[in-house]
C-alpha cells in the first residue's frame, strides 16, 4: 500500500515538474553556481595570500596579492595602464572590424559560389588551424615592425572563424525558407537583406564572438613580440618580464584576462541571448 502510494506520488511529481520547472530551476541553479564560484575564488585568493605572506616561495617568484594590487594602482596613477588598455583595445577593434567585413563577404561568397568553395573553401578550413602568430615573421618582412604587421596578425587570427561561421550559416538555411521567400516575390537584393542575412544572424553572432576571442589572443601574441610599438597591454607584460617584476606580470595578465572576458560578456553574450530568444534558437 505504502509503496504503491509513494510511486504514485513520484509519478505525479514527475508529471508536474516540467510545467513548473524552467525559470524556477534555472534561477536556483544559476544562484547556486554563482555562490559556489564565489566561494571557490575566495578560497583560491586566500590560499595565494597565505602562501605568499608566509614566504614559502621568494617574492620575485610569487608576489602577494597586495603587491599585485599595488602595481595596478601605481600603474594607473602613473597614467600608464589605462592608455595601454586603450591602445590595445583600439588595435584589437580595428583588426577585428576589418576581419569581420572581409570574413563576412568571403563567407557569403563561399556559400553561394560553388567553384570558389571547392577551391578557396578548402584552403580556409586549412588556414583556420594555423596559429595566427605564425604569420608574424611574414608580416615583419612584408610591412616591417609597425602597426600594419600587428594588424595583419589580428586579422588573420579572426577572419577565418567569421568566414566559416557565415558559410555554414548560409549552408544550413532550410531550403523551404528560401523557396517561401521567393514565392512571395523576394529576389536579388531583397532576398539578401530581408531573408538571407537575418536568417544567418544567429550563426553570424557566434562567429563574431569566436572571431573576437581569436583577435584578442592574436593581438596579445603580436604585442609580446613587438615592443618598440606604441605601448599596449601585451607590451606591459613583456616589460614586466624584462624587469623581472612578477607583480607586474601577474597584474597585467589579470587585466588581459579581464578585458577578453568583459568584451565577451558585455557585448556578445547579451546580443546572442536576444537573437536566440527572438529566433527561437535553442541552447544559446
Amino acid at each position, binding site marked *: 500500500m505504502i509503496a504503491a502510494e509513494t510511486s504514485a506520488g513520484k509519478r505525479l511529481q514527475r508529471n508536474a515538474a516540467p510545467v513548473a520547472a524552467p525559470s524556477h530551476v534555472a534561477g536556483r541553479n544559476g544562484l547556486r553556481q554563482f555562490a559556489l564560484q564565489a566561494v571557490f575564488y575566495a578560497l583560491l585568493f586566500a590560499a595565494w595570500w597565505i602562501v605568499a605572506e608566509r614566504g614559502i616561495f621568494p617574492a620575485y617568484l610569487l608576489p602577494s596579492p597586495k603587491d599585485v594590487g599595488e602595481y595596478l594602482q601605481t600603474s594607473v596613477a602613473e597614467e600608464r595602464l589605462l592608455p595601454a588598455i586603450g591602445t590595445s583595445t583600439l588595435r584589437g577593434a580595428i583588426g577585428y572590424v576589418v576581419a569581420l567585413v572581409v570574413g563576412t563577404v568571403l563567407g557569403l561568397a563561399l556559400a553561394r559560389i560553388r567553384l570558389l568553395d571547392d577551391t578557396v573553401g578548402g584552403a580556409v578550413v586549412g588556414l583556420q588551424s594555423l596559429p595566427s602568430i605564425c604569420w608574424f615573421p611574414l608580416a615583419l618582412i612584408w610591412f616591417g615592425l609597425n602597426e600594419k604587421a600587428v594588424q595583419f596578425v589580428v586579422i588573420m587570427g579572426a577572419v577565418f572563424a567569421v568566414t566559416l561561421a557565415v558559410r555554414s550559416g548560409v549552408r544550413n538555411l*532550410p531550403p523551404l525558407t528560401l*523557396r517561401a521567400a521567393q514565392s512571395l*516575390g523576394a529576389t536579388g537584393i531583397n532576398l539578401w537583406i530581408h531573408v538571407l542575412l537575418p536568417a544567418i544572424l544567429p550563426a553570424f553572432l557566434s562567429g563574431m564572438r569566436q572571431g573576437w576571442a581569436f583577435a584578442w589572443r592574436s593581438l596579445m601574441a603580436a604585442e609580446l613580440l613587438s615592443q618598440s610599438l606604441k605601448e599596449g597591454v601585451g607590451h606591459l607584460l613583456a616589460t614586466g618580464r624584462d624587469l623581472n617584476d612578477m607583480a607586474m606580470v601577474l597584474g597585467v595578465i589579470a587585466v588581459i584576462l579581464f578585458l577578453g572576458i568583459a568584451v565577451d560578456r558585455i557585448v556578445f553574450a547579451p546580443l546572442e541571448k536576444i537573437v536566440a530568444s527572438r529566433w527561437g534558437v535553442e541552447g544559446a
Partner: protein
Amino acid sequence: MPIVVQNVGRVYPTGTVAIENISLTINDGQFVSLIGPSGCGKSTLLSMMAGLDAPTSGNLAVSGRVGVVFQEPALFAWRTVRDNVSFGLQMQGVGKEERNARAEAALKMVHLSNFARSYPHELSGGMRQRTAIARALVTDPDVLLMDEPFGALDAQTRSLLQSELLRVWEQTGKTVVFVTHGLDEALTLSTRIVLMSARPGRVLADLAIDAPRPRDTQTDPSLRAAYETLRELLTKEVESVARAEHDRDWEGMSKPVATAAEQFGADI
C-alpha cells in the same frame, strides 16, 4: 487559362522519377484538388507550378500572380506573425501602414489576431500553418497553390478554414490548386478532382464535381457516387503498389495489406 501543363516530367538528380508525362489544363476560377498516394509527386508538381522548380521534360505555363502554401509552414523565424504575413506586400513595395492593416485583416480571417506580435516559435504547429495561409492570401494572388494546408489542424478549425477559403474563392474567383489526402475535403471544396497514380505520378482520373453548394458529402448522391469511384481507384492503385513491393509475398500477405489498402483508399 492560367495553368497549362503539357507532358511534364520531373526526374530528381537522385534518379527518382517523381512525375511522368502529366498534362493538365486548369481554367480561370477552377478549384482543383490533387489527390494521390504519398510520394506520387503532388508537392513536386505544385512547386513547378509555383515556378520554384523546372520540369525536366515538357512545358508548364502559369499566368497571373501565384501564392503558395507549402506542406510545412516555412515561416521567417525572425519576424513576428504579422510581419511574416506582410512579407509579400513589403516585397511589392506596399507602404508600412497599408501592409500592416492588410496583414491584420488576413490574420483575423485565420483567427490569429491575438498572436500578431508573437514569434513563430511561440505558436503551435497548426497556428504556424494558419499564419502561412494568411501570408499566401494577403497579396491577393490570382492563383493559389496549397499543399495540404489544413492537414495539421483539428476538425473544427479545419472546417472553419475550409469555409473561409470557399468564401474567398467565391468572392474573388481565384484559381485554386489544392493538394489533400482527404476525399471528403476534396469533394466538399472542389469543382474538379485530379487523381494521381502512385510514383511516377500520372493522371489516373479527372472528375468534374458540380454538385450544388453548400455540400453534404454524406447525402448528395452525385458526391457519394464520385466518392465511391475515387475510393475504388485509389484502393486499386495502392494495392497494385503493395503488390509490386511485396512481390511473391503477396499471396501470404494479401489479407492485412488489402485491408490496409482499403482503409488508406478511404481517406488517404
